[in-house]
């Protein structure tokens, strides 16, 4: 087989495994961990649309998670609207907010933009913590909102076991990865890359850099908000300190940076590598060495920035490609003819 065929086969195998996991692993604890793993992978991949492709450093994305979570929850609790619909409303709301934030801030220098996103996220958190009622809407301030158990079923976005949640977040993750891949090969993707790398040159080539960034921001905030709803329906309890927290915003950014922002596989790889570290250190060191996983994160982040600024996906992807090449040589040629181009079915943002 040639390289791209092996790659496709590998991807299919991974998908198969991912879908088959709940059939093998029945422990609720492990499924829970996996759900959260995919949740973070989804968040960082959505973040990547702005933080990676648009080349800026948003450090307040938890705000959109919060917008999504609160919107769908309030609509569901107070007005009986299906969380799925609420999810969409939350997404649109987040997209609007994202664009409003982006309009003045994308003109700024990187550091200022980062600061602005932090300020916005913290400002939002403080506001939600202090408001009990926003007009007719009950936000319940710092106590947060709890979702009471309802009839389980797809319509209510509520399930008794972990499996349905697992599949939902897995499908969302695959969808967002596919979207990222499509965008990277599209006009918008090229323009975002160009605008992020050399904005002046890009503008002289007909790229409206600001508008591309806004488009990316709208998409990113929309998608991020969807995850907010998912989280609310999964954990059944949301409050400002957990869902609009700076820690969450930073963790999303760190994972993407360590994995490799700007690439498609980077954020997912980052989540795959770092979340287990986080989980294990919390389980094993939680009492004796609190905060250990954050120290590890920080150290890994610095090391990666020093030695692999494009993220860990770079050496990993190279190793993967070498593996593909070796396999391609071993297996017999299928009549596919011609030069294989590395563009193939590979889900990696190439040059």
């Amino acid at each position, binding site marked *: 087989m040639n390289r791209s065929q092996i790659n496709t086969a590998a991807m299919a195998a991974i998908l198969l495994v991912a879908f088959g996991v709940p059939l093998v692993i029945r422990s609720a604890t492990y499924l829970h961990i996996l759900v959260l793993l995919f949740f973070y992978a989804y968040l960082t991949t959505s973040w990547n649309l702005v933080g990676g492709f648009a080349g800026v450093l948003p450090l307040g994305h938890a705000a959109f998670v919060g917008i999504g979570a609160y919107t769908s929850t309030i609509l569901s609790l107070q007005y009986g609207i299906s969380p799925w619909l609420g999810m969409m409303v939350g997404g649109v709301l987040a997209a609007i907010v994202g664009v409003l934030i982006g309009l003045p801030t994308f003109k700024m220098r990187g550091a200022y933009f980062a600061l602005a996103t932090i300020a916005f996220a913290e400002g939002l958190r403080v506001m939600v913590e*202090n408001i009990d009622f926003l007009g007719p809407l009950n936000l319940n301030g710092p106590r947060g909102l709890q979702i009471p158990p309802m009839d389980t079923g797809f319509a209510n976005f509520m399930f008794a076991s972990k499996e349905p949640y697992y599949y939902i977040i897995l499908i969302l993750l695959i969808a967002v990865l596919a979207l990222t891949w499509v965008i990277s090969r599209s006009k918008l993707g090229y323009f975002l890359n160009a605008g992020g790398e050399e904005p002046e040159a890009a503008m002289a080539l007909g790229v409206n850099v600001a508008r591309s960034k806004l488009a990316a921001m709208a998409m990113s905030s929309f998608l991020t908000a969807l995850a907010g709803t998912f989280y609310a329906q999964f954990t059944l309890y949301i409050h400002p300190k957990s869902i609009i927290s700076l820690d969450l915003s930073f963790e999303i950014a760190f994972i993407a940076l360590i994995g490799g922002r700007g690439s498609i596989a980077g954020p997912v790889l980052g989540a795959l590598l770092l979340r287990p570290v986080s989980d294990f250190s919390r389980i094993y060191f939680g009492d004796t060495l609190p905060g250990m996983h954050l120290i590890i994160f920080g150290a890994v982040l610095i090391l990666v920035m020093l030695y692999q600024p494009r993220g860990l996906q770079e050496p990993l992807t190279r190793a993967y490609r070498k593996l593909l090449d070796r396999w391609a040589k071993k297996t017999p040629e299928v009549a596919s003819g011609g030069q294989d181009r590395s563009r193939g079915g590979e889900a990696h943002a190439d040059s």
Partner: protein
Amino acid sequence: MLYIIEDTINGILMGSIYGLTALGLTIIFGVLKVINFAHGSLLMVGMYVAYWAVTLTGVNPYLALIIVVPVMFFFGYYLQDIVIQPIFKAEKNVREPITVIIVTTGIWYILDNLTLLIFGPQYRNLPDNPLRGKMLELGDMFISVPKLLGFITAVVTAAGIYWFFQKTRAGRAIRATSLDREAASLMGINQYKVYNVAFGIGTATAGIAAVTLIPFNNVFPTVGVLFDIKGFIIVVLGGLGSIPGALIGGIIVGLIESVGPQFMTATWTEAIVYGLFLIVLFVKPSGLFGQKYDW
């Protein structure tokens, strides 16, 4: 009415201390053109150093400056030299050194959690501290003495640093480097040494601020986070790179915090500070006195 005057005065005093905490941030930005996201953590480290210096030797916190300032200076110097400098060199030609921001954020996380690990989460304060709770009576008003001392320290420090940068040769060398690295290096100035020194000065300033804070502020691992965020707000308000701007920005924040609760709940004043921050970022990002940073 009296309360408002008292609040205003206390607001100015506390605000000047805020300005002092933000001074290091603005110095580091002014010279390295980098926003040090770990600044709050450096302040926290300073507070722990000061706390232990006072607790172990029993001296007056302000005397502890003798220990705190050099320790913090060298801490900052070597932090820059060993951890941040390599990224700097790698990003020499990049328009916006975003990676440095990322690295300083990593440093923030490491410092805060390492402190948590080593010293535990408990809130500490100085029990037998002679300054604690001391009030100065001015007619019917009560002015906090530690804050008054902090105000004096802040003004003196700011003036001293301003003088250093304007009048001394070393200071001018640093300013030259900040304006044009290459030209300065052609004049025989080792730009990387300059950065280390500037970072050291910024960190030492945080140490001074820490000393003014410990008489009345609790010491705990994440104490830096709030000052970090306030620090950003202050330097943006006052103008990144401007020393008087830092003080004035701090005073503005201090005033909002102390006078605000007369008119609304305390947490809404927090929201106002954030709102003001965003407004300044959008309307006049160079702040009140900031350098004209080419957009």
